């Protein structure tokens, strides 16, 4: 069953067509990869799904619900968590607080509940805390809880972003270049983490990535974008041997 459907998505910035009638369907609990050269429109696609951009044309349907005109925070509350290509952490907050903020969309204590310390809000705080600690253990940052996020190493920051996105209890997780700047050991760890998240928490994951090794190993379905157009879509073996894909990555044969 499809959890996310993108129908004829078009995005224009002024005269530039960043996405040109793109159709993508992601099935539940799939690990779906989006690849393509720089500037192909991959991150734009993520920004459209998460409500940062309003597409010029087309529909974004998540669990049979139209997301097009929703605000980013509302999209998040529908159960879509994401990470960012250029890491966006809350630098001057502790690692733990970063993940606790992630729970905002799925908790509801209000202003007065908070300042008066009402029982409902205290109970919720406890759940948020337990969840955050669990997630930090999952991504291997359990012993850095009280560090400032900005003091973490690059790879750790990427894992913290994943933990923060997971705190939203998402059913769909979008990872924007999760392996960027990681060494090969860290990449192995990351692959393992993505696998575990999907299997243990029954999540659907879409990832944009340049590391072909990682993409081919981990994704069950891959879409290839080039200059805003989808040029291929299928399982890794098929995409790997697709002529147009090879052309756009390696250049046409003379």
């Amino acid at each position: 069953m499809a959890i996310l459907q993108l129908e004829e998505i078009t995005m224009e910035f002024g005269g530039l067509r960043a996405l040109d009638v793109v159709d993508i369907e992601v099935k539940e609990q799939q690990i779906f990869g989006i690849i393509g050269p720089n500037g192909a429109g991959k991150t734009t696609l993520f920004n459209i799904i998460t409500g940062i951009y309003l597409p010029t044309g087309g529909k974004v349907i998540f669990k049979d619900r139209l997301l097009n005109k929703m605000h980013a925070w509302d999209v998040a509350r529908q159960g879509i968590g994401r990470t960012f290509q250029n890491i966006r952490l809350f630098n001057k907050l502790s690692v733990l607080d970063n993940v606790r903020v992630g729970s905002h969309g799925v908790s509801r204590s209000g202003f007065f509940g908070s300042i008066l310390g009402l029982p409902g809000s205290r109970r919720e705080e406890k759940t948020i805390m337990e969840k955050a600690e669990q997630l930090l253990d999952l991504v291997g940052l359990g012993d850095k809880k009280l560090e400032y996020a900005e003091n973490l190493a690059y790879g750790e920051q990427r894992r913290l972003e994943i933990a923060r996105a997971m705190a939203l209890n998402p059913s769909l997780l979008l990872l924007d270049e999760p392996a960027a700047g990681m060494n090969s050991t860290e990449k192995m760890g990351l692959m393992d983490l993505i696998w575990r998240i999907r299997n243990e928490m029954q999540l659907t994951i879409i990832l944009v990535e340049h590391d072909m090794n990682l993409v081919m190993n981990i994704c069950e379905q891959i879409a290839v974008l080039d200059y805003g157009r989808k040029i291929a879509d299928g399982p890794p073996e098929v995409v790997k041997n697709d002529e147009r894909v090879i052309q756009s990555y390696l250049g046409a044969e003379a």
Partner: protein
Amino acid sequence: MDALISQYIDPYYLRILMLIGINIILALGLNLITGVTGQLSMGHAGFMSIGAYTSAIFSMQMGSPFFLSLLAGAMVAAFFGFLIGIPTLRLEGDYLAMVTIGFAEIIRVFFLNFEPGGKAVGLSGIPQNTTFVLVWTLVIIVIILNAKLLNSRIGRAFYAIRENEIAAEASGINSTRLKVLAFTAGSFLAGLGGGLYAHYMYFIRPQDFAFMKSIELLNMVVLGGMGSIPGTVLGSVILTLLPEMLRVVAEYRLMFYGALLVILMIFRPNGLLGDVRVYDLKKKLQGKKVGLWQSSN
């Protein structure tokens, strides 16, 4: 209690202590808006004046009990904070600062022409109900509630908006709504401080709440450390005391005041307590212990 205090404390010092308390309440309000949520507001004195005038008029012309006047002042200020917050908080940084300056000026000019507020002459004969015990009780309550707020889901969302608004929204935070909330809560405290001020000074006029007052309050937050409650309290204490201590240099007072601000910001760019946490202090201590142990080996 108050009688006892005024017996033992010199009136001059008592006055400074009162002003420190009132400034702490005002600055903690601004800290919520600017320090915690990161929305640069340079019109805090405007909201303070709304609280001051409202409560003074309540007390003088309607003869309402003091607590009711204070509450009315704070509520009306909060209401205006809410009203002004909705359109302006779409703006960011410098633009928001400009607009808040503009609003504070509008409010000041309004009171300059406001008949029941005595126009440019101001209001005098406000009952002197603000007492030392009341001010400091309120300071303690405000600090406790502030600390609870900042430690909660809502408080963390405020910080998240300051740190990265896009990531905050991706976590399900409705940033517009929360910014208006922070602005309203901050204006409430401004109004409360204004009411206390009016009922302490006995006499208020529009120029008491001019641009320089907003800047003074902003300095307290920035000097103490943006977003830090102990920092803001310390900033308020220092910047209330400083002009008094600089009385010895007479006319050069403002020059020294400015120079000290510059020097402090050079050495502590994040404010005095802006980046001080118990956790880091502990780690430093532990680090020192390890160092000693190694050198003895």
